[in-house]
């Protein structure tokens, strides 16, 4: 798709929590790649004593003692039939009808929730992208999980990437939907044709391989980036590139580090060269996002693909539909392998009629269903390779078995461990001005990659824009 979609500008409206809140939660304390997570101390007891008595059994299988509302509302973008199935299971388990408010596209859910909130409509569970959380906390669209039973046990099972996302301002704001991180992949056929046995490990090696593929006439444009306009594409790729290069785009105080001589500038200049000087990048990268990029890779014209969701490996290697199935291989990110990751979550709407029953639905969606299984997470993982925020899911043998057909599971896990949550990679992401900055930065980056301006000019523009929006 050529440009931002209808609701791209929704991102403009995303404000964030203050940096103070983030710092207080200890999010900015750690830096760098994450090791295997260790259990964290339980959350402190809430200041106000909970009015509802703590149920006797596990939280996910014990009905709250309060009365059921007429319905519970679940706002989400669909992922296959998973939500349908989970909702049906919930209805069967608890006899409580679920009103499914499904928006076809992820970008529309943001507008939908705002509209519903403005109209005072009931919303119990909301599938949320993390950039929206800050504004929704500010405007009280969602509420924290204070005083709800069983939150501690979920917390204990969460990995670091998840914990760093759900805990803000000392409160826990939701349960994980899925976890994902930026990776690179290559098409083995071209390697075989060129006699290459190992994927590149550095940026220099990448360029060498690409030039060889180009010279041998195997690929005209060996690299396909997912770099269309849109936060998760062009900007994420830029953040990821700079992070893996060893630099940052913003420092801990959310000030841009794009000055002359910075790693960010270096990385951007290198990126531009792949488009303009070496011509090893497909020009249509600037147009492609999400699925069109994946399916473009299916044509087999390209050798390398870099994309922000590791689970697209399941589409690239789809057994039933991919023309090149089984021959797309994941490779480790270059250098020390660091990459950017994130968790998207389910949150509790503040307009829920009954907080306790909304929590039951939230558990079914992002935690355990009545039978004690992480039903939704397992479905997402086995069916579509979505990562989970829970260790017990990610280490489950069924997950490992399912992912075997799409990627090298050990390599994937190794890469996962090197993923740093995006709020640490880009501390500015939670700032209220970030969306506005990002919109303008995208244009600068796109112009640079298209050869209209130099990397220096683009970085200067981005610095100037920051001054303008952040003051």
């Amino acid at each position, binding site marked *: *798709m*050529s*440009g*931002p*979609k*209808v*609701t*791209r*500008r*929704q991102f*403009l*409206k995303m404000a964030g929590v203050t940096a103070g809140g983030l710092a207080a939660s200890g999010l900015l304390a750690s830096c760098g790649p994450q090791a295997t997570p260790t259990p964290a101390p339980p959350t402190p007891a809430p200041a106000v004593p909970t009015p509802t008595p703590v149920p006797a059994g596990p939280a996910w299988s014990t009905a709250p003692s309060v009365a059921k509302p007429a319905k519970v509302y679940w706002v989400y973008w669909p992922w296959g039939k998973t939500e349908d199935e989970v909702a049906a299971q919930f209805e069967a388990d608890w006899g409580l009808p679920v009103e499914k408010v499904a928006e076809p596209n992820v970008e529309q859910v943001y507008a939908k929730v*705002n*509209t519903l909130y*403005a*109209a*005072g409509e009931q919303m119990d569970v909301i599938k949320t992208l993390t950039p929206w959380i800050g504004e929704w906390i500010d405007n009280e669209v969602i509420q924290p999980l204070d005083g709800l039973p069983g939150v501690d046990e979920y917390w204990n099972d969460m990995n670091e990437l998840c914990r760093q996302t759900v805990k803000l301002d000392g409160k826990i704001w939701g349960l994980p939907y899925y976890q994902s991180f930026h990776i690179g992949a290559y098409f083995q056929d071209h390697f075989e044709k060129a006699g290459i046995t190992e994927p590149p490990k550095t940026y220099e090696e990448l360029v060498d391989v690409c030039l060889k593929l180009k010279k041998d006439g195997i690929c*005209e444009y060996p690299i396909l980036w997912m770099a*269309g*306009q849109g936060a998760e594409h062009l900007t994420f790729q830029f953040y990821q590139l700079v992070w893996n290069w060893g630099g940052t785009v913003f420092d801990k105080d959310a000030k841009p580090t794009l000055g002359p001589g910075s790693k960010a500038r270096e990385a951007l200049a290198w990126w531009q060269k792949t488009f303009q000087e070496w011509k090893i990048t497909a*020009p*249509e990268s*600037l*147009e*492609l996002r999400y699925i*069109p990029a994946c*399916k*473009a890779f299916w*044509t087999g*014209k390209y050798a390398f693909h870099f994309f922000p969701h590791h689970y697209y490996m399941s589409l690239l290697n789809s057994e039933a539909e991919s023309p090149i199935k089984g021959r797309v291989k994941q490779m480790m990110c270059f250098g020390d392998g660091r990459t950017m990751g994130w968790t998207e979550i389910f949150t509790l709407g503040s307009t829920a009629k009954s907080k306790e029953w909304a929590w039951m639905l939230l558990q079914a969606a992002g935690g355990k269903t009545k039978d004690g299984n992480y039903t939704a997470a397992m479905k997402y993982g086995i069916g579509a390779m979505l990562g989970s925020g829970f260790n017990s899911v990610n280490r489950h043998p069924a997950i490992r078995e399912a992912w075997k057909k799409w990627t090298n599971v050990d390599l994937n896990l190794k890469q996962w461990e090197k993923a740093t949550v995006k709020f640490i990679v880009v501390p500015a992401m939670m700032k209220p001005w970030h969306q506005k900055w990002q919109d303008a930065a995208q*244009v600068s980056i*796109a112009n640079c990659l*298209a050869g209209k301006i130099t990397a220096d000019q683009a970085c200067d523009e981005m610095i100037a824009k920051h001054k303008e929006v952040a003051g």
Partner: protein
Amino acid sequence: MERTEAFRPSLWARLRARLGKGELSPGLLAFFLVLPAILFLLAIIAYPILYALWLSLHEVTLKGLAKGELPFVGLKNYSTIFRDPVFWRSLLHSAEFVGTTVALEVTLGLSIALIINDARARAFGTLNKALMLLPWAVPPIANGLMWFYIYNPSFGYLNVILYKLGLIDQFMQFAGNPKLALFSVVVAFMWRVTPFSVLLFHAALQGIPEDLYDAAKVDGAGALARFRFITFPLIRSTLAIVLVLRTAFAFMVFDEIFAITAGGPGDRTWVASWYTYQHAFSYLEIGVGAAAAYVMALVIAIITVTYVLVVYRRVEYA
């Protein structure tokens, strides 16, 4: 015939006789017949036009609507628009779009009308005439998405066809290419609307008597001369009408922009209607959107009136 009246009927009797006939006066009948239509037009066109004016003079947001707080801001929305470089770029893109579309539509429409009207290939012409309405009937949004699919830079049909014809040696971008994006929309839009012009020109051409051409041929006039001195003057009024209508409608293009480029790449295909839509329904700055829509309506009105005055009148006197 002699009138032998015994008495003159009273007014009441006359009225009753009149009503008994069940006949309303033409004026009253006309009023009742037109009433439903007027109600619809008032509700759906007149009232919204006035309400849009009101909206454009206030700051209108979704939150404000929910709370009922809509402050009066005078001409602030208009000044916001006029100070916005994106607005002027949108107008420029609209002008580019309309200019290209109408020029192509008229030339292509007239050419196709001439081709299918030609007696030398009657069978082909009849077939094409029978199929001519197909593009016109396609829903505009479906048309847009269809062309978007054809324009796909990785495996789309246009690339494949051009490559096979040897016209390109690398697949190219169309909708995502800043240089070609607007023209991509022009082609898609034109494919859909040209049949309308063909229809009008065809009807006009049918109205030209054959003997004029025969006489000209006897006088030794070639094809080009026949066109210049017979065909063109006799279809000038149709040409004028086509120009007016198609310009106004091309200015309002929306569906194809939505489906093919969504205003991109960057803001290369932001046109007047897209600007209005984004502000009103994406950014939810409803007041600004209403103001932009008003400016758009004004431009169309100017275009229409200018055409009617300049082109139409000139044709009338021709």
